[in-house]
């Protein structure tokens, strides 16, 4: 059995130290696009968290049960993007059918997720980290899901913080050509500087 520290390290490392937005530059599009209001930032984060967890389970199983044993890893890019895309379609369909409330919360953000590089990026990173080789198939899956959860939490954290800052930026007097995205990018850079200070914890 692997020790619980592995999971703790996986969460902290993928949430804070290798933050998915500010350190790995994945999911910058929703970070800039859907962060104007705190409410929408949280909705997007929830949708990303859910899809990321399920997608990392599915792709891990697909990779180690089908692609790896037959030696056809080279189609992993096609397979992963298609799995993610169909997963999003299925989830959207179920939510439409069975839960109006959830659809109201997440409905707009689900289709945006297919083009979100965060999901495909985390899936690829999980495969490249070789968790299955390090810990065995089952435990490797647990570690992969844990680090995906950490990444999603990191995404939510940064989205929330950034949307709060942006709500204030809207009220600030900014030079005309800096309004909107340019000043937000500079703010994101300063946030990245702050996150740089977390390096070396683990």
């Amino acid at each position, binding site marked *: 059995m692997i020790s619980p520290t592995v999971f703790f390290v996986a969460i902290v490392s993928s949430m804070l130290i290798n933050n998915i937005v500010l350190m790995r530059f994945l999911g910058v599009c929703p970070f800039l*696009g859907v962060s104007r209001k705190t409410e929408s930032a949280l909705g997007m984060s929830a949708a990303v968290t859910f899809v990321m967890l399920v997608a990392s389970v599915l792709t891990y199983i697909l990779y180690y049960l089908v692609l790896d044993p037959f030696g*056809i890893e080279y189609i992993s890019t096609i397979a992963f993007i298609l799995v993610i895309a169909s997963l999003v379609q299925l989830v959207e369909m179920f939510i439409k059918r069975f839960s109006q409330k959830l*659809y109201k919360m997440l409905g707009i953000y689900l289709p945006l997720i297919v083009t979100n590089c965060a999901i495909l990026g985390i899936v690829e990173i999980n495969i490249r980290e070789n968790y299955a080789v390090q810990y065995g198939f089952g435990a490797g899956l647990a570690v992969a899901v844990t680090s995906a959860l950490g990444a999603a939490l990191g995404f939510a954290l940064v989205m929330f913080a950034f949307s709060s800052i942006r709500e204030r930026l809207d009220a600030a007097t900014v030079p005309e050509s800096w309004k909107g995205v340019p000043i937000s990018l500079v703010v994101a850079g300063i946030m990245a500087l702050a996150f740089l200070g977390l390096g070396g914890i683990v």
Partner: protein
Amino acid sequence: MTEAIIAIITVALIVFIYIGSYVLNRRVPAPYQKVDEATCGACSNYACGVKQKLSEER
């Protein structure tokens, strides 16, 4: 050779699943809610069907 066949079959299978789920999802009507049309029009996301539906309604 068998590897290539398995690869093709796998991809074909996933593509089939994707197309199936895509078409099914399109058929389920969305419980509509208020969408900010200006934000939606400015967004360049291809996978989002809301924009298309909005323009069809108009």
